[in-house]
């Protein structure tokens, strides 16, 4: 159970190797993340999601970013290139494939830089081998995953199936609903991922196109302030810059030994990554104001979801309200660590729990079914596959059908 965390003025401890108030080469003032989000005047901007990624990276004190084109993240990756040419990043280049890009990011992180990259869909899967390596090597790299279809026939439409493949990669996974979420998650994500007792990679995820290519009003702090940079000497494992003496790691490489030591090393390292992920909760809860958001939990029917399916859920709730059906909402912000206790608590009085998802596998519904008591209450759906949006009416229809009410099905139209 997550302990109740007080919200002190400083919600998270920043690295203190750079003096607050001093300036970087772009004349941006190093600013505490708490001040940036809670004591700074935010101004509304009307931007696409890709532009929001650019706005976040501009003030994130990123050292290296490596890019590779794949829809729908290409625009954001190119905009980061513009920031590099303006001098906001130390290093930026195009890699040769996502597998290579994630390796290049790892190299930069091993050498002590704050590293950011973006990928999507098939690119995420091509890069996949790197993600557990990042976690195992304790590299706090941030990858922004603008999710899209991964199957054949080719689809570039939004689809969150790739998140399913990332669930056990050892990365923190935060799922943004809106462009505002994405902006906040990117900046706060660096700070949580880089905490010495966490120090894990983080995937900040959003639904491709719906977030990346639509315009939304986003509150941004001024761009003459920036996050304090990453301190590689706060890492729980040595930075690979030959600035601390190399140690002989072991007498024999345990990889070759089918013995107890080999097992213990492997097991304890895996346990440590999971423990580090658990420890991220205490930093994340105050900074994101909880791992979930809730509305009207006293209602018998709840929609529990993540990403843009939450937005569609909000509209479905409004439509159902017009017909006198009252529905509550749970928005899940962090997929890893998963908010077990929060979801259990939030859904304890619900009779029906609907989980709309932008994928056919229903991975979020499985996660919820695995943790709530009486999980027959969980209805996995509705689902849509890549290639179409999820109209709020589809969620309305699913709920009404389940309640035994008459529906004028969208799918029956014209027949």
């Amino acid at each position: 159970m997550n302990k109740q965390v007080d919200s002190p003025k400083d919600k998270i401890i920043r690295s203190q190797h750079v003096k607050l108030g001093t300036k970087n080469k772009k004349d941006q003032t190093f600013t505490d993340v708490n001040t940036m989000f809670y004591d700074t005047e935010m101004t509304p901007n009307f931007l696409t999601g890709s532009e929001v990624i650019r706005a976040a990276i501009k003030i994130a004190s990123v050292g290296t970013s490596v890019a590779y084109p794949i829809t729908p993240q290409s625009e954001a990756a190119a905009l980061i290139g513009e920031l590099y040419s303006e001098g906001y990043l130390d290093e930026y280049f195009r890699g040769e494939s996502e597998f290579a890009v994630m390796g290049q990011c790892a190299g930069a992180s091993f050498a002590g830089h704050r590293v950011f990259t973006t990928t999507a869909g098939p690119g995420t899967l091509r890069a996949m081998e790197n993600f557990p390596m990042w976690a195992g090597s304790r590299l706090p790299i941030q990858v922004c995953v603008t999710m899209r279809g991964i199957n054949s026939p080719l689809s570039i439409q939004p689809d969150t199936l790739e998140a399913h493949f990332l669930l056990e990669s050892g990365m923190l996974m935060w799922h943004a609903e809106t462009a505002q979420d994405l902006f906040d998650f990117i900046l706060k994500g660096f700070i949580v991922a880089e905490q010495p007792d966490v120090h894990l990679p983080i995937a900040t995820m959003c639904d491709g196109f719906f977030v990346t290519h639509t315009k939304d009003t986003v509150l941004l702090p001024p761009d003459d302030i920036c996050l304090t940079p990453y301190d590689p000497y706060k890492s729980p494992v040595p930075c690979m810059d030959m600035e601390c003496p190399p140690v002989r790691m072991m007498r024999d490489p345990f990889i070759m030994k089918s013995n107890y030591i080999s097992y213990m090393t492997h097991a304890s390292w895996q346990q440590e990554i999971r423990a580090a992920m658990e420890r991220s909760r205490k930093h994340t809860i105050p900074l994101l104001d909880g791992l979930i958001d809730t509305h009207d939990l006293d209602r018998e029917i709840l929609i529990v979801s993540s990403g843009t399916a939450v937005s569609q859920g909000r509209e479905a709730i409004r439509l159902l309200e017009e017909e006198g059906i009252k529905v509550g909402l749970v928005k899940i912000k962090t997929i890893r660590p998963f908010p077990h206790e929060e979801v259990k608590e939030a859904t304890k009085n619900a009779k029906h729990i609907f989980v709309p998802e932008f994928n056919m596998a229903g991975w979020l519904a499985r996660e919820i079914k695995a943790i709530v008591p009486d999980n027959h209450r969980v209805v996995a759906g509705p689902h849509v596959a890549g290639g179409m949006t999820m109209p709020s009416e589809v969620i309305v229809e699913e709920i009404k059908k389940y309640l035994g009410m008459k529906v004028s099905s969208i799918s029956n139209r014209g027949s």
Partner: protein
Amino acid sequence: MSKEKITLCEDLADIMPPEYHELVATATYGKEDRGWKDIGNSKELIEQHSLCAGCPESIAFRYILASLPNPEDTVFVGSTGCTSLVFPHVAVQNIHSLFGNQNAIASGLKRTLKCRFPDVEKDVVVLAGDGATVDIGLDMTMQSWFRQEKFTTICFDNELYANTGGQESGLMQKGFVAKMAPAGKTFDKVRLPEIAREAGCHYVALLTVSKPNRVERAIRNAVYIARELGPTYVQLYTPCILEIGKQSMEGLDEMKDAESIGGRFVMKEYMTDEAKKMIEDREAEEKAKRKAAKGKKPVSA
């Protein structure tokens, strides 16, 4: 890294392992004229190895580590294979991440080290087997050369996948019967040194590890040129005696045969004109320094 950083704290000296004491007392960190001749006299940067008895790769490791011009500021990037069994015993920081992505890792690493330490030469050296360099990692090997990344790639060419039990590899000779090539390999040994030259390497060397002075020269050239000009490539024949049916003491003879006239590993060296000039200048400078040192008479008591 300054040599002071490996100095022992007096209060903790008694609990430090003897290997560490030796490292502080007699290692060649910071010694300008370090080289293969230190082997046997000084503490080596490889503690021991977990390879097969008589494996030429273990010889290669000792020569390379003795030849590095600047081990206290060198980071190795390895890959999966027999080499990854040795890295835990090496007193230079090293990264093993995945199989085949070594040149991608090295690209990010070198660029970041350059950003973070603009005034210090931090050398990055990739050391991987032929499967990692030529087969699964060829894309990343070559792309790092195209991009003119400033680090050295060393390939331990044993002409097969040794660590997984002797399967066919791209650097295997045509006709060799191996696992996964039951009727003999059907295509020629990949000519990576020539590819390296065409792909933009400023220095390429192909040799065996039978002669330590040759290995030392190749490694030093490769590291110096990579610092200043761009990518360099050294391919070392380190036969897998186990998989080609040789005895522990026969590795050296196998390498000598392979480098004799008409053999596959007659030493070849290529460098760009720019690299050649740089090496000649450096050698002239070193020669002058030695001459000056010789001329100085020792101060008598």
